């Protein structure tokens, strides 16, 4: 994820933020990140975010739920695709 807060976490604390599938757990996230980006994940924090209520005319609905994962990497590790975004 590329947001103001995510970039601040990355720069200050070497924490990388991802949007992940709602069914995944911290262990799966850790393994996936380590395998995909060849880094060492020290800690994973997750947040389940409920979708915002939306209304189209008289129809009320809600956006899909989603999950955010913040991965703390070992000092010195970095994920290239986040650089310069």
């Amino acid at each position, binding site marked *: 994820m*590329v947001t*103001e807060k995510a970039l601040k976490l990355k720069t200050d604390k070497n924490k990388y933020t991802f949007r992940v599938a709602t069914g995944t757990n911290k262990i799966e996230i850790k393994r996936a990140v380590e395998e995909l980006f060849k880094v060492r994940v020290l800690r994973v924090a997750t947040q389940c975010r409920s979708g915002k209520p939306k209304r189209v005319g008289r129809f009320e609905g809600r956006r899909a739920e989603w999950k955010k994962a913040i991965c703390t990497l070992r000092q010195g590790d970095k994920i290239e695709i986040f650089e310069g975004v």
Partner: protein
Amino acid sequence: MDIKVKEISQCRRELEISMPPDVVKAKTTELYDRYQKNLRIDGFRRGKVPLDVIKSKYGKAIEQEAIDFTISEAFKNAIKEKGLNPITQGIAEDTKFSVETGLSVKITFEVAPDIKIKNYKGIEIKPYPTEVSEKEIESVLLKIQDSKAIYIPVFTRRARIDDMLIVDYDILHEERGIIRKDKAHSYTIILGAPEVPEEVTKSLINSLVDDRKKVSLRYPTDYKDANLRGQSVEYEFVVREIKEKQLPPIDDEFVKGVGFKSLVDLKSNVEQELKKEKHKESNIKAETQILNSLIQDTPFEPPSSIVASYLQPLLKQVEKEMKKDGTKEMDAETKKALEEIAIWRAKREILLDKICEIEKIEMTEPEIKSKFMEVDEYRQKGYEKVVKSLKEKGTYDWLIGELKREKAMDLLISYTNKGV
């Protein structure tokens, strides 16, 4: 900044501009700063988007914008520095930019040709008669009389020139190789009228009511009706009615019928109208003679952009007329003739602009206002609204230029042997 001017032709120039990379770099930084302050990207508050994010998303576009802006600024400065006066927008070609060598670009554009008008005072022109003769007035009266003619049916006599014949006819004509038969009822023919083919007039003359006449004719290839052009057609006419043309006598009743109190009134009005027409014609002839003389004495090549601006509307107009007539392709002769007209008009514009420059002719606000108010449409809208809408359309400056040229033309007429 290094500028080289190359004269490609009398009115085409090429500027070769080269600049150090710092100029583009400074402009790029300036643009990044501006975008960073105002850009909105999802996930960031306005003004808080990091430069890296902007660079990765829009870097190439911003760099191009900086190059374009630098080229446009450099072009402006270069024409100022070299004292050039472009009449078209510059076309940038061969743009090269690298961080090491900087920016280099070639810009081509057109300039008004530098002409020197030798002598524009005292041009000799042949006077065009503006007097109105009694004969001309009579001829207009006869035309009015003719337009008010009535047709009375005759039953016993044979048809003659100027009679109106009501006919039914069968027509056999070839259409795409197939012979087709058509019919028409109660069709009106004026014998001897220019639009009626000679063969038809010849055949129907001396006919009586209920007579049958056959005519075969081939329409000329330049006939105005595209459906009949170059076709062989067979007509079989049945004369249903013969009507004799009767002209009303030019008396008080006739004069009142056309909206005048007396014959003297009508004649004086006709005379005034004829005089106006002749004055107009005389002015046009004088203008043409003056301009032709100036064009002959001042040889130059008009810029292609000005010629094109006159040629395009002419082509469009002719194409529209051709569509109406059913002609598909414009022949080379017409195209050449239109090009010659466009060149003549372009030369007129340049020459008169030069006269405006020499004589310091300008249009004052009251003059513009009074000219605009002569046009009904503008008068109804109001001066301010008209000026605003013309400026929005971008035609205001051209219109003022045209008014200045008109003024220059009047001045030239006053300088002629006739005007002095």
